[in-house]
């Protein structure tokens, strides 16, 4: 390995080595703790040399490689998840690399008070994700319906009417989905310590037939997880035409993300 750097996964409350011992990082490397005052940075050593996966140019190329990105994101998440299951942990963004452990300590010092507050906020709580998808547009689906042959009398006007009905049905479905998303988010926020609406994901990413109308993140206390799931189940019944996805518990990605200042 040429030049090395310290890859930051998370900053956490003091965590035992037995938790870190079983974890492997984005380069398959063992992860270790860098301690400073009452905080612990969970780091791994990665190759940042010109030939290393985390060298500036190679990394830029790797981040454009969906296959590499997916594997790295999974490994990154696995480490954070492993730590967050044991102690409160603030996740860092994928591929946050600093020169060495002194650089890590510098950041712990600089971010100390903010981190302390953030860790207090997420202690004993986890993030849950609720996604809502628009209902299927009712009305004639032009692609599925047998189209009467062109030339038959009245078929032109009928075609326009059908297209119009399809467009209206689609608009109605989207309007309904937007309204449902607002109501669902408002209701779930009441059952969460903190709530955020994230940008909805593209249909090609979700692979869903209908667009996503809510991508919500909710910070929920560990002992409130069952009640939260029950609330989601209730909403699912109330808005049965929309599709719901509930996922979690996750590390609090949406509520504490450390960015380079």
């Amino acid at each position, binding site marked *: 390995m040429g030049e090395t750097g310290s890859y930051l996964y998370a900053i956490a409350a003091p965590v035992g080595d037995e938790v870190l011992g079983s974890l492997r990082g984005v380069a398959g490397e063992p992860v270790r703790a860098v301690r400073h005052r009452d905080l612990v940075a969970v780091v791994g050593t990665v190759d940042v040399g010109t030939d290393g996966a985390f060298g500036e140019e190679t990394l*830029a190329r790797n*981040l*454009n490689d*969906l296959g590499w*990105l997916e594997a790295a994101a999974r490994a990154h998440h696995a480490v954070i998840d492993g730590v967050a299951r044991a102690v409160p942990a603030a996740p860092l*963004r*994928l*591929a946050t690399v600093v020169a060495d452990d002194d650089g890590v300590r510098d950041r712990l010092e600089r971010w100390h008070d903010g981190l302390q507050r953030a860790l207090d906020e997420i202690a004993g709580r986890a993030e849950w994700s609720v996604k809502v998808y628009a209902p299927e547009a009712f009305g004639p689906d*032009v*692609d599925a319906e047998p*189209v009467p042959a*062109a*030339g038959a009398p*009245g*078929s*032109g*006007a*009928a*075609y*326009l009417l059908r*297209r*119009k009905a399809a*467009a209206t049905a*689609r608009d109605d479905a*989207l309007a309904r989905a937007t309204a449902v998303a607002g109501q669902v988010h408002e209701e779930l926020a009441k059952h969460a310590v903190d709530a955020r609406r994230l940008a909805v994901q*593209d249909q*090609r990413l979700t692979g869903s037939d209908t*667009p996503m109308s809510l991508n919500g993140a909710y910070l929920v206390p560990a002992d409130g997880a069952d009640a939260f799931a029950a609330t989601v189940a209730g909403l699912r019944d109330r808005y049965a035409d929309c599709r719901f996805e509930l996922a979690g518990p996750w590390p609090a990605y949406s509520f504490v993300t450390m960015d380079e200042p």
Partner: protein
Amino acid sequence: MTHPVRVLPNRVDADADSVERDLFKLVLTVIELIRQLMERQALRRVDEGDLSDEQVEALGQALLRLDTAMAELRGRYGLTIRDLDLDLGPLGTLLGD
């Protein structure tokens, strides 16, 4: 990180069949875009009510023929309407919904 995630492959597969199919797909995408714009315009004019019944019928006939022709051309390469869409990044997709 501000690097855009590249969706297109780094190399174009120059295999004759796939080049033909991809070119065909691109042409169909452009036609489909124009078809949708024409259809929207037609629906708007029908809504405004300044067209006679004969004109509405003729407009509908023309669009219906175009739609049928497009479906047949798509079928030739086993393409669906969704295959024709292009991702324009922050602008959304070319054909929208």
